């Protein structure tokens, strides 16, 4: 039987540890992806992810279901990311490209994908990552929440605490900067109008 988030939260509050485990399993990847795309560092993103669940667990008795559990988790994670950026006093750092490890790449490839295609895919991913790192935090967060987590404009506005129109403006400005940056890059400029 598949429980909803809210049912698992209720069971967790009553002391069922397995239910909270289930919530962690269900949400750890989205939260980690959000943290990674916001702060750009693998280890720190993992720490933020872990801290998010730790705080959620401690605050669980106070969770009254006024928001969706996922929104509540996103808010905790975003606050932690914001703290991290302030603490580090820097924009997200894209980890320097390392020598391509073919074995590692092969492990991530589909059986039908050649090594060359895989390297090209990884290159494009890095180009996007670098372009995203150039954006101000607010624009980056809006794009990450919209593009990778599928939140509506209203949900993003509620989550980050700003008007709906501001969310749209941040998205528009962020996408425009990305368009300009990708158009400049030799690896992507042919694909951007």
């Amino acid at each position, binding site marked *: 039987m598949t429980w909803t988030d809210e049912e698992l939260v209720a069971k967790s509050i009553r002391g069922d540890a397995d239910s909270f485990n289930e919530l962690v399993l269900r949400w750890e990847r989205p939260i980690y992806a959000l943290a990674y795309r916001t702060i750009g560092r693998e280890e720190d993103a993992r720490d933020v992810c872990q801290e998010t669940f730790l705080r959620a667990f401690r605050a669980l008795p106070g969770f009254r279901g006024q928001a969706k559990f996922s929104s509540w988790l996103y808010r905790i994670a975003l606050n932690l990311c914001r703290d991290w950026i302030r603490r580090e006093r820097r924009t997200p750092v894209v980890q320097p490209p390392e020598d391509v490890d073919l074995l590692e790449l092969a492990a991530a490839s589909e059986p039908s994908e050649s090594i060359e295609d895989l390297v090209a895919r990884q290159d494009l991913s890095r180009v*996007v990552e670098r372009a995203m790192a150039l954006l101000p935090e607010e624009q980056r967060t809006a794009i990450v929440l919209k593009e990778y987590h599928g939140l509506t404009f209203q949900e993003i506005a509620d989550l980050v605490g700003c008007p709906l129109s501001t969310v749209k*403006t941040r998205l528009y400005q962020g*996408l425009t900067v990305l368009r300009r940056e*990708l158009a400049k890059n030799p690896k992507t400029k042919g694909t951007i109008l």
Partner: protein
Amino acid sequence: MTDMLCGYANRDETVVAFLYDELEPGERREFNAHLLTCTVCRDEVAGLRAVRTHLARWEPPALTSLQSPVPETSRAAWWQAPPAWAQVAAALLFLGVSAGIANLDVRYDQNGLNITTGWNKPATPKLVTAQPSKGGTTLVTDQSTAGAPWRADLAALERQLRNDLRASQASAPAAQTVRAVSSSDAETLRRVRELLDESEKRQQRELALRIAEVVRDVDTQRKADLRNIDHTLGLVRNDLGVEVMKQRQSLNLLYRASQRQ
């Protein structure tokens, strides 16, 4: 890329809402009609769509699960770790119990159940010795008060009894003395029994606590062993994976070489 030269109302917000399919049906129809006539907006929508296509290629590194790989039945979740003060208290308790348990001595003989612990225990547990006095009265003889706290109580009781005896012998007739001493004997026995009972209960509680600690230690060790086994299995799986990847590479190379020929 084209510079923006279009005066469509709320243009930026409308472009974004159109891009993410969040326009109302009426607004959408209106903007679609506008796109038919406006090259600037059409190019921009196409450019931003291409950006979205690239964004979809950005994958974060794989996350190894935050959950411990130890099987569910023997796993304590990381988010349930006890607070630091509890861990310190548990460590202190564990050290104390370990130190005591190393010299735990359980004996059952004609004197009853006797449990002693600690590194500096007395050579012989001479706890209480009773000797008959000349007047037929049983008195507690001189004892060391070191060790169990009830020995101090016994010594104090003995001193009190001696004083009472001397006083009664000096001031009362012989018959009265015998009665008084007999009464004191009964009181002494009752007190001694109480002290012994209390001591026994205390030691039983201590033994139960230590047994519980031993069980917990064994359980902790079992969990650590399970983790080690799981880790070793993971290493074996990794080695196998690397071998498979190498094989796949070799096959790729062979395939390409055969295609060139």
